[in-house]
């Protein structure tokens, strides 16, 4: 109640001071998050290594979880005002439609069916997932063609199933599919050699290899089967929340591009090197008002989770046990495909 009154006063103040135009309305899911003072974000039923996993202390870790924390900080001001709801791959769409979760941040590929038929909309991609194939070294395969006729294990209901059949059929290669519902069963089948190969999302394969009883027995082939842009999903009609998400991703990337890190964000805020950074960190107003957030949301967020590169390193990159190369998920000026939008 108090927060509602507070927001009304704030909104009145904004109107009185003359800020008009794209003032976001506190309706819909964004308003609900603020009222609740907590973000309901996706976890996983089990562990999706590197992206959403539970550590030894029982806390959620991973790239997607860090994105949830970033969004929670941007909206509520604290990374702790976050509830991770464990959902399976299949449950994520019904869960968001019914309002059990506010957003899906769960390496969700941007496909036409999901975008158009499910009443959902996507944010700009925050991760680009290459699909590779992992196989056992003893089979002596150096490319996917060498695996023709083999058994390919995949996780049921994911885009991997489609990518596999498209890749193999278009090259006239024979294959046999074995699909498992849970990642634990899939890993079991890979480790006990029921499968010859496992096509999958690059990060997932790296993690699966690291977890294997004998990681050196496995090799990830260089052939890229497909590329999947992963976006953050909200319900159709949640434009205010979608704006926040798009700018959250953009600010994380801009911070990396400008060399703003968790460690130096206070210095940067004290002595902003450029007008853009000054605006971004809320030294001059505007960056928050236009989204219906506080003006220091970007500062709070970087202070809490760091920039895009730091999140990547910590969860899946060189600073983690998965050692996944940045590859295409680097900034445009480092050979990747990611770029910030223009913060004017």
């Amino acid at each position, binding site marked *: 109640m108090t927060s509602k009154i507070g927001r009304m006063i704030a909104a009145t103040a904004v109107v009185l001071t003359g800020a008009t135009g794209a003032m976001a309305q506190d309706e819909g899911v964004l308003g609900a998050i603020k009222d609740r003072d907590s973000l309901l974000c996706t976890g996983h039923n089990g562990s999706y290594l590197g992206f959403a996993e539970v550590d030894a202390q029982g806390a959620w870790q991973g790239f997607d979880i860090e994105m949830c924390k970033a969004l929670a900080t941007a909206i509520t001001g604290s990374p702790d005002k976050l509830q991770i709801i464990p959902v399976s791959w299949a449950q994520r*769409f019904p869960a968001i439609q019914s309002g059990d979760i506010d957003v899906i941040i769960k390496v969700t590929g941007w496909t036409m*069916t999901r975008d158009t*038929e499910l009443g959902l909309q996507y944010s700009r991609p925050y991760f680009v997932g290459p699909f590779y194939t992992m196989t056992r070294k003893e089979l002596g395969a150096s490319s996917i063609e060498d695996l023709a*006729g083999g058994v390919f294990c995949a996780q049921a209901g994911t885009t991997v199933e489609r990518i596999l059949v498209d890749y193999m059929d278009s090259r006239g290669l024979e294959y046999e599919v074995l699909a498992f519902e849970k990642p634990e069963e899939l890993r079991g089948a890979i480790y006990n050699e029921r499968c010859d190969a496992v096509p999958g999302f690059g990060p997932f394969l790296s993690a699966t290899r690291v977890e294997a009883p004998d990681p050196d027995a496995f090799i990830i082939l260089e052939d890229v089967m497909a590329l999947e842009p992963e976006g953050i999903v909200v319900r159709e009609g949640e434009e205010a929340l979608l704006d926040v998400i798009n700018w959250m991703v953009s600010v994380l990337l801009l911070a990396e591009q400008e060399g703003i890190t968790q460690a130096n964000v206070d210095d940067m805020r004290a002595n902003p090197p450029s007008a853009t950074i000054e605006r971004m960190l809320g030294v001059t107003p505007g960056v928050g008002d236009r989204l219906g957030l506080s003006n220091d949301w970007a500062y709070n967020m970087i202070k809490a989770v760091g920039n895009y590169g730091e999140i990547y390193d910590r969860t899946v990159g060189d600073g983690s046990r998965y050692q996944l190369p940045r590859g295409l998920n680097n900034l445009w000026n480092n050979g990747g495909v990611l770029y910030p939008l223009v913060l004017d």
Partner: protein
Amino acid sequence: MSALIRSRSFRRGAFQIGFLALLIALIVAAALVGRANILSQGMATGFGFLEQTTGWTVGFSVIDVGPRSTYAHMLFVGILNTLAVGLLTLVLASLLGLVLALMRVSTNTPMQIVGGTYIELFRNVPLILQVLFWYALLTHTPSPRNAISFVDVAFFSNRGLTLPVPALSGLDVLILVAGLVVLAFAFRGLSKSFDLRQRILGAIAAFAALFLVLLLTGRAPEMPLISVPALKGLRFDGGFTLKPEFTALLIGLVLFGASYIGEITRGGLLSVDKGKLEAGAALGFNSSQINRFIRIPLAFRAMLPALANQYVWLMKGTTVGIVIGYPDYFAVVSTSINQSGQTLELLALLMIGFVIINYSIGFAMNVLNDRLKLKGRS
């Protein structure tokens, strides 16, 4: 008017009609509200997706399937997979259950102990655990390149049991099945002129002749008579492979189901009046004749209702196939939900599918029950 209200049968009828109307109104209201909510959330878009191609495929199927198949076809494949493993389970579990029951009611103590131990062991361990156990056992076997081979024509590996099979086309198989049906009718029709042994031998000979004719005619000259599996690259080419997912699920269901069916059958056998068995003995029947002509037919009547229940249960039990990657109806629907996003439509189809399968089993058992029940009693 007051007479009408005082009439007991009228009051009863009015109450029943009122109750029924209320029930229908409730259901309709719930459906309408649910539909409105679903539509406002954009969750349901109808059954049009059934015509779309899936773009994904499954690794085990009785009929042809591929990424260009429609969702309707894919769901049909799932139903056939469920029926394949389910019906085979019912037959095998019933046979094994009968053996177990006969062991338990026999007067032979070692037999009783073996039967009793089996039932206690398999009845008390959860089905899903048993299926996972058999699957782990079947996949912790050599890889295809190190397969255990039987004189180089049959192979056992973690890809399953690969056997040589006669090279028959789909049409050939169809003709064989049709032949079987014709022979079955002929078998019954000839009952007056030949004795049982002659008829059995005749039927086998006629069927073998049909089989040979199909094998030797109507095929390209270079096509071999028998498809022998051989290791080629990563897998066996030719022959027929019994995949470990199917085998593990079948073994798990049969062993688990047999322990229940065994107890049901034992109950049926024990329900047969002792006097009838003694009457059989007095007429000079030996123990196997007593079992065949008196005990089992009478026991069967008594146990049919319980057996129908168990059959329906086992058919539903096939859904644990999802944990070992067997694409049964439940697994196919689950994947379809994920791929197409049509959650509610597919859940409805899932329920309808199982209701039809299980209602059919129940219906067949009821018909059997009606035909077998002792006439003149109710």
